[in-house]
């Protein structure tokens, strides 16, 4: 479990107020050029893992132990400015909600190019050429016109394409996609998914793909981590997961996901006894963690 582009080791985060653990000794390894799915029900801590990596955890949370290695460098040991520089140059986020991820006050063009110019030191001209290029890569016709438009003039699917283009613009080594299709309707979801996996393959990006949909994992991921209550309960490659998960929770999750006939049915609940068992496991882990602290 090493040599990944992104390696998270033993990462725990707590709520500042109560001391309750939100991330429980998380280990995640993401190899260069591969896609790892991060799966779990709502509130499992998927977004917090992404935010911890990107350095934008909410103030209410605090990392108390662990390492986040990008290309071998521990982000948590770097000075704030150095960490921002490393993240800014190597990493990008594809956010969940295309409605709030673009600034309503600015035109599309600058929202893609400002970062290239101000942070990465490109010339304005080069940045604009690059923006046109990536917008065409995400199949936006008339990219030059779109760059002059405001976000509210564009559809949700269009905005998500722009966010994807923007994420790939600086050729990052690592992209974190936080449920990038959840806010979109089903037909658009499929196109966006395909777009992301095509771009990922072409650019050889390491992609951490947060989702609660195992169907999506089956389609595009190489490996996956199943998260429950901030703990990784299953860490495996996709083929062996779908051939039979090792953990009871993973099995229940898989059993609850029908083979993609009825999209709503994927929200079937996991049986109570399985939940009780996982909860007990978390409780035990917490007791040991406190003792070892």
């Amino acid at each position: 479990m090493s040599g990944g582009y992104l390696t998270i080791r033993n990462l725990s985060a707590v709520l500042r107020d109560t001391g309750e653990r939100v991330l429980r000794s998380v280990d995640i390894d993401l190899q260069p050029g591969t896609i790892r799915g991060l799966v779990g029900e709502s509130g499992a801590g998927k977004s917090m893992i992404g935010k911890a990596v990107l350095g934008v955890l909410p103030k209410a949370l605090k990392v108390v132990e662990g390492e986040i290695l990008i290309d071998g460098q521990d982000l948590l040991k770097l000075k704030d400015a150095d960490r921002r520089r490393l993240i800014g140059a190597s990493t990008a986020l594809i956010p969940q909600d295309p409605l709030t991820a673009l600034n309503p006050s600015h035109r599309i063009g600058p929202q893609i190019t400002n970062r290239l110019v101000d942070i990465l030191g490109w010339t304005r001209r080069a940045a604009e050429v690059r923006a046109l290029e990536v917008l065409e890569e995400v199949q936006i016709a008339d990219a030059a016109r779109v760059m002059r438009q405001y976000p509210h003039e564009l559809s949700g699917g269009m905005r998500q394409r722009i966010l994807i283009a923007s994420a790939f613009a600086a050729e990052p080594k690592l992209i974190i996609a936080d449920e990038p299709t959840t806010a979109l309707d089903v037909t658009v979801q499929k196109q966006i998914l395909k777009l992301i996996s095509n771009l990922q393959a072409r650019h050889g990006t390491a992609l951490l793909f947060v989702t609660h949909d195992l169907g999506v994992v089956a389609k595009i991921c190489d490996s996956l981590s199943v998260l429950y209550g901030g703990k990784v309960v299953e860490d495996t490659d996709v083929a062996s997961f779908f051939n039979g998960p090792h953990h009871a929770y993973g099995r229940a999750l898989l059993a609850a996901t029908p083979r993609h006939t009825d999209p709503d049915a994927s929200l079937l609940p996991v049986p109570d006894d399985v939940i009780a068992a996982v909860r007990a496991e978390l409780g035990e882990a917490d007791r040991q963690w406190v003792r070892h602290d």
Partner: protein
Amino acid sequence: MLDGRGAVKRRAGARLWLSGLWLAIVALAAVFAPLIAPHDPLMQDLLYGRLPPFWMAGAEPGYLLGTDSLGRDVLSRLIHGARIALIVALVAGIGTCLIGSTLGLIAGYYRGWADRIISRLVDIWMAFPPILFAILLIAVIGTGLTSVIVAIVVIDWTRFCRVVRAETLNQSQMDYVHSARIAGFTRMKTMLSEILPNVLPTIVALLSLEMGIAVIVEAILSFVNLSISTDQPTWGGMIAEGRLSIHQAWWVLVFPLITLFLTVLSFAQFGEGLKDRFDPVLR
């Protein structure tokens, strides 16, 4: 949906233009007062005392809105009064806006101890009844135009601070703010170029409203004789004097009241209209 938006736009347009028109008239009157005013606003002529406005019996040509009990031309005094009103509106409005908005932005975006101190200060400030606060302040720092402006800024910065803080908090949670930070922009840069443009429509609306409030406060302070020296015509001073002769010459009271009312209303409406115009989603 599109129709609704169109209707909003049209209504916003009408109020923007009507209120803008009135404010332009007031501004022109203030700037060119000596050229426009038909008479010297201070010139007394007891022979011409309490002349009624032009449409009433006994009106004198040349005194469109009549004269007060000392024979001073009401229209000329209104026109000259616009000067004090506008100076107070501009200086006090902008001062209040700068101080309140800056503190609100900092509190809402940086949070932490800065927010705790600023929010506490706002709470303490808001516990004082504002007019009483103003009168106390003036009693301490003395009367005069500068005192009036200082009093308004000192009292009313909280209005901006509270609203701007809330709006900034709101914007800070948006994903685009996170994205800017992830990309590597500093907090200062993120606050100024990502958040501020989205809070600006609210600030502009508040600024216009505040200018109206400044005009009222100045009028109230003139009314109780705490503003500038009495021989300079002010709307508040005219209202105070007009009140004394309401039964003999109602116009001395009513015209400054109407002027004051229209001006304050226009400032508020103009702000709302501008806000809609600035709003990127309605634009």
